[in-house]
């Protein structure tokens, strides 16, 4: 601390100013790259070995099963080429490609506020395969099940409702990532990734932010939970 009568030389003052500027810039860079630019993993879809021009994408949706910074938040997981699950909603797919998606739904469902969310659109053939059955619309009012979440890419007009697990089952998944021995439903479908490089925003439209007003908070807008991007790349 400078005291009365003590003055610093010009060089010392210049040094302090330069160090202060460097510290400020360091702090700013840390804020940007250490926090604001931090994001979940990006998983690249796996090239299909059986079909040309097709990639496979395997995902699961977990309930509030105690993982990550927000253990009470529902979230998507994506499997990489090595079979490892990543809690993320950031997916990379090639341009001009059929994306074949399989979603394992481990969360329970319910009736919908908006019946439009039960309709399928934007997928190949206009139908999804739900537990082995082709459907163009999923019944949101089936007793015990209903719809848990939706998979929607507005930019590609893709909407897929995800049928929920029956609430009375005994073997609910308790911690993510869940495995196939636990209660789940399976939905598979395919869509075309488009002819241009683009970053498509996607998200679940069923309000599933448990504990938030009308369910529209927390995980709903968070990357790695119920909102993400489809990066369509060359």
């Amino acid at each position, binding site marked *: 601390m*400078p005291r009365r009568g003590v003055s610093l030389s*010009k060089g010392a003052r210049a040094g302090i100013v330069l160090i202060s500027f460097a510290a400020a810039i360091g702090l700013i860079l840390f804020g940007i790259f250490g926090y604001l630019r931090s994001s979940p993993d990006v998983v690249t879809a796996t090239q299909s070995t059986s079909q040309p021009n097709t990639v496979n994408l395997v995902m699961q949706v977990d309930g509030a099963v105690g993982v990550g910074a927000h253990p009470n938040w529902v979230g998507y997981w994506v499997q990489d080429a090595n079979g490892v699950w990543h809690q993320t909603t950031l997916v990379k797919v090639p341009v001009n490609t059929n994306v074949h998606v399989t979603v394992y739904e481990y969360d329970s469902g319910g009736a919908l506020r908006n019946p439009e969310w039960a309709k399928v659109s934007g997928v190949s053939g206009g139908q999804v395969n739900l537990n082995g059955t082709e459907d163009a619309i999923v019944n949101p009012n089936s007793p015990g099940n209903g719809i848990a979440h939706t998979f929607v890419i507005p930019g590609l007009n893709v909407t897929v409702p995800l049928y929920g697990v029956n609430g009375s089952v005994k073997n609910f998944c308790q911690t993510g990532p869940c495995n196939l021995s636990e209660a789940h439903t399976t939905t598979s479908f395919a869509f075309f990734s488009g002819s241009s490089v683009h970053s498509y925003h996607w998200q679940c439209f069923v309000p599933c932010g448990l504990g938030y007003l009308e369910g529209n908070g*927390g995980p709903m807008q968070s990357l790695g939970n119920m909102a993400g991007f489809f990066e369509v790349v060359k």
Partner: protein
Amino acid sequence: MAIDMSQTTGVGRGGSSEGGGLKKGPKLNAFTGVLVGALGYLFGHWMGNAIAGGYQQVVGSGQNDTAILLGFIFGTIGFFLGLGILNYPLQKMTGIEPPTDEPEQAQGMMKYFRYTLDNKVVGIQYLFGMLVYFFTAGLLAMAIRTQLLSPTNHIWGPATYLEVVGEHGTMMMMMMTSVVMGPFGNFLVPLMIGSKRVAFPRLEAAAFWFTPAAYIILLSALWQGGFQSGWTGYAPLSIQQGVGQDAYLFSFGLLGFSMICSALNMTATIINYRAPGMRWSRLPMLAWGMITVAFTMLLSVPVLIVGLYVMALDRSAQTSMLYAGHGGSSFLWENLFWFFGHPEVYLLALPGFGVVTEILPVFARKPLFAYKTSVAGMIGVAVLSFFVWQHHLFQSGMNPDMRPLFMLTTELISIPTGFLYLVGMGTMWRSRMRFDVPMLFVMAVFFNFLFGGITGVYVSDVPINVTVHGSYFVMAHFHYTIMGQLMFSVMAAIYYYTPLYFGIKLSEKLGKIHFWTMFIAFNSTFLPLFALGLLGMPRRVFEYAQRLQHLNQWVSVSAFILGLSLAFFAVTFVWQLAVSKPKSPPNPWESRGLEWQVGYPVPHGNFAKIPVILAGPYEYGDPNALPVAELSAVGAHSASVSGGDE
């Protein structure tokens, strides 16, 4: 004069005591404040978890707003305790008479990190505080423009983008309310009115120390998921948000208390502490700007605080006053917020006009044109600002019959604003202007405000408002009025008053580089936003139509140049202040203002004796004008400028 400020009564003694009454004791400063504040936060958070940890809402969402809010409350109390701000009131409350003699004043840089009752130190604390807040919010603006370089490639996620937008808007709109009153009002008003002190130095000092607490808490929202509601905090978005919203409401509340403290002090000082002869008709324009703003703050800010309190209750105690689904009304918040929010726009604009009308006659070398009209303009804007807030709600479902009324009142406000504008033009008319850096910024204020003001008349009209509501057109309008007017005024004031504050004169050459780059880049950034708005680009979206990409890229590149220009200012300002220190002659602008007559450094207690005011401060070019005041020169380089230097 209502109060005898002679030395014998002791009332007018220059205030410089620290520690709020503790003569001897621990050396309290900002660092002890942060330490005790952190402990207070932990205590409050623990208490909140103990109280509300079992709420169903908390269990469900995993967030405990009660704990966060109590943490903020006790953290702030701890911060104030650690700074020594509460010593004086606590001693009074417990029956201990605080010492009345002045403790030794801290020397060197350390005095700027302490609670001090010296209005000049508080002014400088405010100056650097405000610059830090402004540059932080400016960096966030750069983050916004980086994202908007492309409609398809993303630098930030959508939620992060909205966090950044909310932080930028809130920090600018909330912290910059004090950007003139804090650094310039506190330092200059006592000097301008011939007072040895401010009326309530403890309130003045506390008003500043609210701001770093608010800044840290607001910034902490970024680490807590932010608040996607933006600076307006509309319900129900603000109710369903994560704990970042608590940081928004609490920091805004702290700033509200800061504004009230500051405004109370400013009002009482100007009304009661004017020197003999300082009639209302001789009051400098900056002081007029301060008192009109202070009254506006006193009447509007409490309404905001009530609204924030309601929001805090909804979020923590699970009341439902702002949520229609449970019997409340989001209109309640909208009205409470905008009853503060629109006068707030003038809290930002009026001080800017105070600065430019203060500086303009000095460089025009002629009296301020139509002084009384100028004062009428300020009072008119302040009064009318309370009758226009519903124009923000034209599209909210309000009673349509009310729209014409609020359209009319909003259009009416262009009349007193026009007074202020025309006063500026009249002062410049046939003057022999000197184009020093402060004057360049003043002229830029009038240029920029022309765009902001005229588009303001358009957006107040219901048909146009309905068309451009929520678009970049509105954003361009308010950036022209606030950044184009207020921040250019602040820059003018910084260049103008640096000799009085620090005894240095900033380089004209560097200043002109700063001015021209900032002026061109500012207009290049915000003028195209009018076009973007009319082409249909909505605010607060991080993806936009592909056809708007080129305009957005132009705006982003211009914004980066604007950011570089401001960074250039920051670097050269600090460098000249701390390293090269180019010395300034006393009163380098040959101002008649009383504040310039005391010399540098401004003496302790401002004046040896209370001056007697003999004439107004703007009698330039009048060979028969009296000196502005009769005063005893006490500064080492005091300068007495008599009227009529030409």
